């Protein structure tokens, strides 16, 4: 509830909120406006009277045509999608099973293993990229999508496991016991009773995993080298920047189109994100 007089509302709510929104969202506006601004308007120094930063009356699709016609951007989009989908599937499979085992089964070393997986969740990619690049080369996986499909689960699985553990813990034990009394084997109770109940949790794990692998950068930068193998972030940085020359129009168009898939994924599931964060923070 926002109470109080009008000036209080402005000072304590609308003004700070407005400033936050401008600060957080302006770069996206700048991305969009640059995408459709012709080069002639793009490169006017800011102190000229003709400099109009916020609008253009001559929108152009030239940068989009360049991006999709002259570069392999469409292939990068496909590569990124393929890698994100497959590594997400692998990670969900592993994470759901591991999360179930760690949260609902009692066995020797459960606590130790749970802690170990939590710790690997906190290992940043930048700690391991040099030795990992050597290993990828030794397995002759370099410059193939499989180098990323197999290495992305290292940061996706711990995350999925952690999230699923929290979710499985919230499913009442009685549900499983009923199925067991009715004669279901342990694995059947898991597969047919508990996992279906956990579908909302699996869905949010899926969105996070997809986004994390879509956004990953350093492994893709180090493991991939040929232009037609690259993912969007790496392709944009290596093919749209030539030495010191930045092709700002196509660059912003690429940034815009590379951001849209994750933005859409999230816009549908933002409430799940909030509950997911609450769940994982509490769990």
């Amino acid at each position: 509830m926002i109470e109080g007089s009008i000036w209080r509302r402005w000072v304590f709510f609308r003004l700070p909120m407005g400033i936050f929104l401008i600060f957080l969202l302006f770069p996206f506006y700048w991305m969009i406006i640059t995408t459709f601004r012709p080069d002639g308007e793009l490169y006017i120094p800011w102190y000229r009277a003709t400099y109009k930063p916020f609008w253009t009356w001559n929108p152009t699709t030239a940068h989009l045509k360049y991006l999709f016609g002259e570069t392999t951007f469409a292939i990068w989009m496909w590569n990124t999608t393929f890698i994100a989908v497959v590594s997400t599937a692998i990670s969900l499979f592993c994470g759901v099973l591991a999360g179930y085992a760690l949260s609902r089964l009692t066995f020797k070393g459960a606590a130790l293993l749970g802690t170990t997986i939590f710790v690997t969740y906190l290992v940043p990619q930048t700690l391991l990229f040099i030795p990992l690049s050597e290993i990828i080369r030794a397995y002759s996986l370099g410059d193939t999508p499989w180098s990323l499909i197999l290495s992305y689960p290292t940061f996706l699985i711990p995350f999925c496991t952690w999230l699923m553990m929290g979710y499985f813990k919230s499913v009442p034990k009685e549900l499983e016991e009923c199925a067991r009394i009715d004669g279901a084997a342990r694995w059947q109770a898991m597969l047919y009773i508990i996992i279906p109940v956990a579908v909302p949790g699996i869905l949010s794990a899926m969105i996070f995993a997809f986004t994390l692998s879509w956004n990953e950068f350093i492994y893709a930068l180090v493991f991939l080298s040929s232009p037609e193998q690259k993912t969007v972030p790496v392709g944009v940085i290596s093919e749209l920047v030539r030495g010191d020359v930045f092709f700002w129009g196509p660059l912003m168009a690429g940034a815009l189109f590379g951001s849209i898939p994750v933005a859409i994924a999230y816009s549908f599931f933002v409430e799940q994100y909030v509950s997911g964060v609450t769940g994982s923070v509490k769990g």
Partner: protein
Amino acid sequence: MATTAIPVPDGTIIVGKPKWRPLESEGNLAMLLLLPTVALLGMFIAYPFVRGILLAVTNSKVGQIGDFVGFENFARLLKDPIFHAVVYNTFLYTFVTTIFKLILGLWLALLLNRDFKFKAFTRAFILLPFIVPTVLACFAWKWMFDPTFAVLNWMLFKLGIVAAGAGVNWLGDGDMAMLSIMIVNIWRGVPFFAISLMAGLQTISPDLGEAAAIDGAKPWQRFWYITWPLLMPVTMVVVLFSVIQTFSDFQIVYVMTGGGPANATHLFATYAYQLGVGTGLLSQGAAVSLAMFPLLFGIVIFQLMYIRRVETR
């Protein structure tokens, strides 16, 4: 249970030996379920970690297996003035951005926790900086920081802070470049803090605040004595998580400055990349990466202990 008796519909009872069902044992089932995870994590985390240590104590270069040199790589780092700058930069970067992310994130969380029009809509938009690919968003910032053609200097010009043609050289000057990458990091991190802390705020019962208000507590007293202590567990997790991410950050610096000008903005990760991949000195790069490990390890231990303490309380 030696035998099982299965009643069938016509009333007779079939007595037989139990089937051999190894997966009924919790230990066996757990082992099977954990196998893929342990295999993947072992192959692509534990093994690279060991290889990283082995690399760091040799003098390997790309395509050339080196000899054992002991701690020579680390000793060289201790004398390397760029590495000194890297350590200073990384700590400064992590410390300053975390403080700002916490303050601004908490403020935004408190704003978002009220009821207002378009609340769900606003939340969805606010998350954008955190969820879009960092590299791509950094390009938008780099273009905004452009000293000749971009909007930030225009804004300062219109506000009368800079004169025509004498704009701020955002990424070209060492100190300004550091400030610029900090701004971008704060921009990316605030939504994460805000949404996580807001989720934490929602778990706090409003009755507590109302009870205190009836007892005459002022708004800031209610915040300081009720909301803040109850929010502490969430805050700790968010801060520690963010510190790990910021300390090992790579993307923002790589895109915005590449570590320059004159190595003024190098962090551990970008310097490791420059040595290991850029110059091909694998061992030295691996040593720089590993230099992050003690602090990260400390934070993780601290986090584990804190979570345990909160859980057993």
